[in-house]
């Protein structure tokens, strides 16, 4: 980069670069980032990228940014950072070299050479991507056996599966875990109305003291209301019938069994 570079030309360069840049400002969105823009600009110089005039490239890029802003394209911050950096690099390339270079700064020519190298590298990868893309691809250009013959297979100790599969399996689990919601099923209860109706139907048979446990339905152990619910509803319904004078209830002491009997109004 140190040779073949003539500062005297560069005052016209900005104007020419603006024209070059103009042609490129078709679609800012078309570029993924400033490096891709730089590469597109560098190609207009039609030289080996490693022999690129970085000074001219800087002009081209600054013109590109200026034009984009004039047209009120919104540019992402990294485009502007690149513009600032290139403006700085340009000034360093143009200024006469200080006799004693600052130790912490690489020579501007070296930085320029590195930029050219990065562009060459990106270009190489874009070419590589293209070279891969035009290769005959399986399922697009060349085709394998459409109807492979079954081959009897025995499983072996060898396992299929890669790390990505393992990670997906794991994270799938954990995500399910965080999304798991708790939906308790409300316990089925024995409706009070049903208990009353049932008790009324049983009244004629309740001519003797009968324990509550024997009066309440047994229920089924697997489905429907629990035994406790049957007992509670039957007791509540029984107490209502007691209040209405159709039933008698008695309990000898606290926590003892409760007995029920139909009230025989006249004989009691």
């Amino acid at each position, binding site marked *: 980069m140190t040779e073949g570079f003539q500062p005297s030309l560069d005052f016209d360069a900005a104007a020419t670069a603006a024209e070059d840049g103009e042609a490129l400002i078709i679609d800012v969105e078309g570029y993924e980032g400033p490096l891709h823009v730089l590469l597109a600009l560098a190609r207009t110089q039609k030289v080996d990228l490693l022999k690129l005039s970085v000074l001219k490239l800087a002009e081209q890029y600054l013109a590109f940014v200026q034009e984009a802003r004039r047209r009120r394209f919104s540019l992402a911050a990294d485009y502007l950072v690149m513009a600032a950096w290139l403006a700085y690099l340009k000034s360093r390339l143009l200024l006469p070299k200080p006799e004693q270079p600052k130790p912490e700064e690489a020579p501007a020519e070296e930085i320029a050479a590195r930029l050219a190298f990065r562009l060459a590298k990106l270009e190489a990868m874009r070419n590589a991507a293209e070279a891969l893309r035009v290769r005959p691809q399986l399922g697009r250009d060349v*085709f*394998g*056996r*459409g*109807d492979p*013959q*079954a*081959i*009897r*297979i*025995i*499983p*072996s*100790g*060898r*396992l*299929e*599966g*890669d*790390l*990505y*599969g*393992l*990670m*997906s*399996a*794991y*994270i*799938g*689990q*954990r*995500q*399910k*875990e*965080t*999304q*798991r919601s708790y939906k308790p099923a409300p316990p089925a209860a024995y409706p009070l109305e049903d208990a009353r109706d049932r008790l009324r139907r049983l009244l004629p048979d309740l001519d003797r003291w009968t324990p509550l446990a024997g009066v309440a339905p047994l229920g089924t152990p697997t489905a429907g209301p629990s035994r406790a619910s049957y007992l509670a509803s039957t007791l509540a319904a029984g107490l209502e019938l007691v209040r209405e004078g159709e039933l008698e209830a008695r309990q000898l002491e606290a926590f003892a069994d409760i007995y029920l009997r139909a009230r025989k109004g006249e004989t009691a």
Partner: protein
Amino acid sequence: MTDRMETAREIEALLFAAAGALSERDLAGRLPEGADVAGALEELVARYAGRGVVLTQVAGGWRFQTAEDLAWLMTQERDEPRRLSKAAQETLAIIAYHQPVTRAEIESVRGVQASRGTLDVLLELGMVRMRGRRRTPGRPVTYGTTDAFLEHYGLAALADLPGMAEMRTAGLLSLDLPADFALPDPNAASADEDPLEADAPEFHVDYLEEDS
């Protein structure tokens, strides 16, 4: 190249890539107009006669098939990698990240009861081993992964299991994860674990040192 030969090439390719037999009409329909399908087929039959693959006419049309006398080659048993069931894969992943982990803990992450078979398969394959016993009531057995596991997944050490950053890179982390979502460190020492066999500390010795 003669037309006949070119048609033969085309038929060769079509029959090879087709999922089933193709009739002469199928072939003619897919070849350029005026192709001499019958002639080309005749040529191909002759060309493949006596080879390992022969061109034969079956009910639906024409197809390539392997020579009958080579049937023994086709039925030979082949070493095919075994595919883990989804449940086993998930269980293995949980053990890898959460080890040492008990069966109950695996179940709590998966939200389903681990069927006996799943863990057994992993133990049998040598991917998972019993590591020790948790110092909690009931002293449940803890599970961990083996060296064979590391080898299979190309990991130098447990510390190399991909973490959050890599999962994010790989696009595996959805955005609606809770903010405090974290991955366990499978390499972390586990203080509340007793070795299963005090005499065989073949793995990480970190948790064993608690006793000394």
